[in-house]
């Protein structure tokens, strides 16, 4: 599902975000990506979502070679990759409903279907009664769940999460992880970047370890 073949990313100015990384995550897998800040976790996720392009090597996602996708293909690729961020990246002048509907609106889905799918996503993250509320009126954990609902509302085969529990206390973090496990149970491939080692250990999933842009550990489940 996600396949890196000797991938390097060098930023303008010479900083190497990722160097010679190779790994493969199979369809339906749930894996963690860990390492110190600046180890290359975000770079790796950005390469998968085509927020950045690899300087060297090949990146494959959903059987597509991302190196060969043109810039015009990028939006269509992103529709198949749900992305979740530590800072949620919600639109604060729109309601929870409109935030979650955004990927569907962008994809040109009809009104009725949007309503149905957004409700389903809200139900999944347990915020069905908050659809008319603005994000600022929600707690951090609730905002993150809105971000998750937005990422899953199009039912993408792959979900990426960058420090999704970074600002949450252990109990809320655990709830978010349970949500991810539920998605994984229905066949979604997940790659979650986090430095919360203690949380990862309780879950017993595959863990990729990055250090200074290099893959230095791959602990199987």
């Amino acid at each position: 599902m996600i396949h890196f073949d000797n991938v390097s990313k060098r930023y303008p100015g010479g900083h190497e975000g990722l160097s010679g990384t190779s790994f493969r995550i199979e369809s339906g897998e749930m894996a963690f990506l860990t390492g110190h800040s600046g180890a290359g976790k975000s770079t790796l996720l950005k390469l998968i979502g085509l927020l950045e392009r690899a300087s060297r090597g090949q990146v494959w996602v959903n059987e597509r070679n991302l190196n060969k996708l043109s810039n015009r293909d990028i939006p269509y690729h992103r529709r198949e990759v749900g992305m979740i961020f530590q800072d949620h990246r919600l639109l604060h002048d729109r309601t929870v409903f409109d935030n979650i509907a955004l990927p569907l609106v962008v994809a040109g889905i009809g009104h009725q279907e949007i309503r149905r799918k957004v409700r389903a996503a809200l139900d999944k993250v347990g915020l069905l009664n908050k659809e008319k509320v603005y994000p600022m009126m929600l707690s951090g954990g609730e905002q993150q769940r809105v971000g998750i609902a937005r990422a899953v509302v199009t039912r993408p085969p792959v979900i990426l999460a960058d420090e999704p529990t970074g600002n949450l206390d252990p109990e809320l973090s655990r709830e978010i992880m349970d949500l991810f496990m539920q998605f994984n149970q229905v066949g979604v491939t997940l790659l979650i970047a986090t430095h919360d080692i203690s949380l990862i250990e309780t879950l017993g999933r595959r863990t990729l370890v990055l250090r200074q842009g290099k893959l230095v550990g791959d602990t199987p489940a």
Partner: protein
Amino acid sequence: MKARNGRGPGFNRRFNPRGWVIRHMQVALASLGRLWRVPLATFMTAAVIGIAIALPGAMNTLVNNVRTLSGAWDSSASLSLFLKPDVSEADGTALARLLGTWPEIGTIRVIGRAEALAEFRRLSGFGDALDMLGENPLPVVLLLQPSPSASGPDAAATLAERLGKLPEVDIAQLDLQWVRRLHAITRTAERGIWVLAGLLSMAVLLIVGNTIRLEINNRRPEIEITKLVGATNAFIRRPFLYDGLWYGLMGGLIAWVLIGISVLSLQGPVAELAGLYDSQFELSGLSWRASLTVLLGSGLLGLIGAWLAVGRHLAAIEPA
């Protein structure tokens, strides 16, 4: 399912025309709603556009009026043919009948020697001097009016030249110098208006472009997030293009009103002036076609201005 040229399976980009139309209408209305919610800012931008468009528009209306007026004068331009002294009145009348068959010539009047003398006596005050001459020195004169097709200054001049070459004709006189000058002035004014319109159109492009650029900056986070969830550039561009279109259309509407007010405010004095000249002339405002041109031209300028701004600034915004 397997890759053409190794890219992997293609994306689903099926185009749904009905959905496309609905989305455009939604975006157009949303854009209008957004502008409506900040009425003062919207009005000021539209007013600047309106004034920029109204200036050449009003001037053009005035020049059109002058042209209508000078067109009326053209057709009243007449030619005087002074026949040679040895041409008799009967020959003059025969010539008039012949010339009456020319398509360039409208009406002809023969002024006989006696009639000319009487008129001269009456108007000049040289009656006594004329009596001393003993014989009538005045030639037969044909007063003719070119037909409408030949009444332009150039055509009338050509006609005068042709008539001057007739054996019976001594002098063919056409006094159109001042009409020519007026035409030249109108043409200069027209050219000037085009230059002005060009410059002010550029100003409109810059105004709209700058307004849209600020709007793009204000909505930068929204653009980034929308790109993150898979929006195409066309999707991102659309609301800004509609903003530009609405600004342009509102500006056009304001320009139309301003031109109307200008014409109305001039109507009274112009009617008074025309009355002094015994003229029925009436200042005309914008025709339906001209109104439509102002409105749509302004809308188009807004759209182009937005397009330029969007093209320059949107590409630079990528999520990170």
